[in-house]
């Protein structure tokens, strides 16, 4: 099923677990502000930079660095997945 989802939708799906309904807007803003792209234009090669920004932003929303790392690890898994493909 994941194969049919866009990369952006997969990032949002992972983020939803941590940020709930704010996930879509949060990721959209990260993509627009830091990558200067529209969410639907998110590509595999943007992921690394996006994850860096997501990590610092989420680190200020929670003091629990384990949760931040867990979340970031899941996003990094997307990078590995895309490299396999």
């Amino acid at each position: 099923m994941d194969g049919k989802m866009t990369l952006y939708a997969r990032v949002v799906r992972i983020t939803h677990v941590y940020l709930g309904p704010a996930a879509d807007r949060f990721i959209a803003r990260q993509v627009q502000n830091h990558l200067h792209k529209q969410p639907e234009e998110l590509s595999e090669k943007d992921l690394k930079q996006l994850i860096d920004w997501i990590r610092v932003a989420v680190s200020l929303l929670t003091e629990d660095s384990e949760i931040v790392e867990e979340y970031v690890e899941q996003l990094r898994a997307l990078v590995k997945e895309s490299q396999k493909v």
Partner: protein
Amino acid sequence: MARKQQPALPQAAITPDEEQAQAEALFNSIGDGAIAADEFGKITRINPTALHILGFTEAEMLGQWFPSTIIAVTENGSIVNIIDRPITKAFLTGKPVSEKVYYLKKNGQRIPVASTVSPIIHNNRPIGAIDVFRDITLEYEIDRMKSEFISLASHQLRTPLSSIKTYSHMLSDGYMGEVTHAQREALRTIINATNRMNELISTLLNITRIESGTIAVSSKMISVDKLVQDVVKDLEVQAGDKNIDITIKLPSTPVRVKTDSLIAKEILSNLIANSLKYTPEGGSIQVRVQRKKNSIVVVVKDNGVGIPKYSQDQIFTKFFRAPNVLKYETTGTGLGLYLVKGLTEQIGGRIWFESEEGKGSTFFLSLPTPKRAPQNKAISGQ
């Protein structure tokens, strides 16, 4: 004659250690408080000024999570939502963010600070942020005292002014015996000057109220058509004195908006009076009301002196007067448009303009219209 080429100066060799020592000296010696945090929001460095302002020791802050150690509060003491803090905004936007907030000292005391947070980016990766902040307690106090002084002085000035005005009118109207033509002219000058001073006091009082956040906004449904007509009527004499034609263009159906009628009138009066001031004799002013999707826009267009391009970004600044208007109107205070902007923001409106020097200016005042509740199709279909 060709110049002899100078040999290139040898590059001063700075080792990474020296560079770090320089950066550290700079960080520690700046007069503002500075706190650096890593990509996890943990505090990695604090300079002596920051420790002094916040009352912590270095050991109490190093390694702590920035948002829970440096607590930001609003003017009324409630904790600023983490998403609204400058450091979060800097990370969310990737750009420096400057704001005035209150920080809580270790002893719980609240201090106003002007803070600028910049993300630290290394090799295209965000690796932390630095918050540089300044204690602005003294500035706040001076500002408060200045506002209090203006408010007090203005109230005190109003009382004798109303006596001068009343008695001048009584004298002029012959209640105290016959007056000669020359005396009546002199009294007219006194009355005009008193009116001008009254207007200035009202402006100063309104500005004080806006700046201290004590202006009372009382909204109710008003007719924009009537508002425009009333203001233009009030300024008819002034317009007649300069032979300026003011035309009004209204939509075919009545326009109503929920706003504070007194504030809206003050704004519009200022805009049209400004046009009158800076439009030469025989000129024209057009006041138009336009209905937009979520707002009503009142447009005041004149063919006056206009605003030079280089002054346009300062036009709503306190005490600012464009150089080209000084020869037309020497008595202006530079407070009118500052007041207009402040009042417009108080009623949730928006103000902007287009202008060309020598051709005229057009000011746009947008007043929000209440959103209509979505209609239930099932009910409306009955």
